[in-house]
């Protein structure tokens, strides 16, 4: 089962599972669109389940998206539906889901999920499901693993876009302010910013004083180099954003995110595009240099996976099968180089992998003279 949220190259994971399981003589069934294939099979002319037969897997292109699709919601505990009286309601269909899995003679479920999906599978495991999870996170925010599936592809794409943004900034003699994914964590912004030679990187973990950032940029902008590149994570933590007149409504997501600090704090996560716009506008006022905002964000969710993700996907898939083969369920497969490990779901949930103060990438950025806004 593939959870909500698109990441490039999901087929690699599916292939990893199917090949490793096939090797053991197990039969593998794919569920379409999260749990939809089981809960609403009537939506699929060819059935909600897909037999992942060897000939299908053999020709499966690991560079393509997900053979199984994914759904916007994977929560069987709150399935929105319309009842016989044409009224909308959310119903708990978790028991029905477990019964259907049993009826289909499915003994165990391997799910490729992000943070919220982990909690859902934790709950299903508590109700008796043999569940193994594979972490999928573009932001790389799942705590128990070093790298989640999908992160490396997003990172490569983001770097490519930043390179282009820098060239555009250079040609125009302006400062490009580029927003990248990362509402809770700054891994993507920081790593891509370093690779692309950004002048500044603003991440949720480091409160950014725009005045200081402006001073730093001014210093860097010389006649020899009259342009700049600022990378802003969606959830960048701008300490003077109150002054920037941020619409209060846009603080909403912040309060839902684990890093949120509440209303009176300055940590604001804005809707896609707002962080870049706010920073670009503020900087332009502060240093009288022309800025332009760009949003890479959502583009990084699609496309071709990198070599790293292809390997990682296959390894995660095989690892999940190995977990089941050694009798482990209720676990998440984690990649802690050089090992593949199995972490109990209870330990994997409620944790967010943020960039710690003593992180190597942070030190690298500082040595390279990249301003983090502090």
């Amino acid at each position, binding site marked *: 089962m593939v959870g909500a949220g698109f990441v490039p190259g999901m087929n690699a994971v599916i292939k990893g599972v199917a090949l490793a399981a096939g090797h053991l003589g197990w039969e593998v069934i794919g569920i379409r669109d999260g749990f939809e294939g089981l809960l609403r099979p009537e939506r699929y002319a060819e059935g909600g389940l897909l037999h992942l037969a060897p000939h299908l897997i053999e020709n499966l292109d690991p560079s393509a998206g997900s053979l199984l699709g994914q759904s916007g919601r994977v929560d069987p505990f709150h399935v929105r539906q319309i009842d016989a009286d044409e*009224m909308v309601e959310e119903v708990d269909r978790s028991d029905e889901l477990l019964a259907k899995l049993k009826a289909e003679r499915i003994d165990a479920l391997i799910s490729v999920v992000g943070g919220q999906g982990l909690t859902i599978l934790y709950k299903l495991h508590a109700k008796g499901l043999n569940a193994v999870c594979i972490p999928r996170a573009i932001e790389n925010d799942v705590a128990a693993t070093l790298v989640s599936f999908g992160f490396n592809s997003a990172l490569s794409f983001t770097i490519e876009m930043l390179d282009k943004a820098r060239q555009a900034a250079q040609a125009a003699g302006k400062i490009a302010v580029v927003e990248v994914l990362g509402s809770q964590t700054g891994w993507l912004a920081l790593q891509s910013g370093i690779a692309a030679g950004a002048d500044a990187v603003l991440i949720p973990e480091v409160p950014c004083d725009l005045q200081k950032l402006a001073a730093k940029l001014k210093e860097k902008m010389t006649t020899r180099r009259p342009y700049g590149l600022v990378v802003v994570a969606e959830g960048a933590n701008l300490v003077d954003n109150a002054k920037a007149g941020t619409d209060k409504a846009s603080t909403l997501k912040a309060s839902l995110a684990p890093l*949120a600090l*509440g209303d009176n704090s300055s940590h604001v996560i804005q809707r896609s595009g707002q962080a870049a716009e706010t920073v670009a506008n503020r900087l332009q006022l502060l240093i009288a240099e022309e800025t332009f905002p760009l949003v890479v964000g959502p583009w990084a969710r699609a496309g071709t996976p990198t070599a790293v993700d292809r390997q990682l996907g296959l390894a995660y898939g095989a690892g999940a099968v190995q977990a089941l083969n050694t009798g482990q369920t209720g676990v998440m497969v984690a990649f802690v180089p050089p090992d593949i490990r199995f972490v109990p779901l209870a330990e994997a*949930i*409620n944790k967010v992998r943020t960039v710690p103060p003593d992180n190597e990438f942070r030190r690298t950025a500082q040595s390279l003279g990249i301003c983090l806004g502090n």
Partner: protein
Amino acid sequence: MSNPSTTPSAPTGIVLNIQRYCSHDGPGIRTNVFLKGCSLRCKWCGNPESIRVKPELSYDPKKCKGRECSLCLKDPFPKGAFYFTEGEEGPVKVNWDLTSGCDEASCSLCPTGALEMYGKTMTVDEVLNEVEKDASIYRTTGGGITLSGGECMLQPDFSAALFGGAHQRGINTAVETACNVPWTNIEKVLPHVDTMLHDHKLTIPERHKKWTGVGNERILANFKRAYETFPNVDFIARTPLIPGVNADEEHIRAVLAFIRPHKNVIDYELLPYHRFGLGKYEYLGKVYELDDYKTPSDEVVKHLQAIIDEAFGRTRQADPTAK
């Protein structure tokens, strides 16, 4: 939960909130009683706490004392529902997917009131006693009680009993509904209603389904049947006006064409959309789906209001801030 009813046969209902001194939902100064539960899922909903029928947890991080308290990390709170992130200060974090076991009893353990339940069970008398406190204001202003929601017609017996009781106490009654309920529910409530405010959200069925979750065929049939079955009720049509969704002439004219043949539809009000409810989404751990929507401009509201005024044969200059 509140005390059980003293008259056990009287219906009880799940009440979200009782708000006094309201002036926009029916004639005069009124007390609005919000019932819990809704049968639509409008993407712009300003009252997310009213959607689910059952009482549910609300969390206000500003009130939380943080690590030094940590009470909600222990029994009887559900395991894993509340947690702190390593090395981080500030209020407790909530994993909303694990909070379904929270109830009034557990929430009452939170010393600061950061944790509360939205919605409590009340009897007809408990509600009416509260409403009656402003009886003299209703008399001087022509106000009364307005039942709102969510969708109060989802609790038809309770609503009917509340209105029946209000009339007995000489209190004017108004209901605010979207009518996405079986006709039998409406039939129970309307005999006790003086004014019915009802929402014409979108005209075209598939657009209605897109933005609210269901088509509007049954809703329109209910409206028409209500107009015809209850000639003595004053009906006021309303549209929450949202740019990019329904703030256009086409919709307004379609609604006018629908209501004007019925003489007991006495007005059509526009409710320009404002981002009111967002703080509540935060308390419920829900993400607001209509993140990018704006308030309609004054010009648009004025233009549409003029069309309505013309249809009702009025010449007054519209005041878009009046609603």
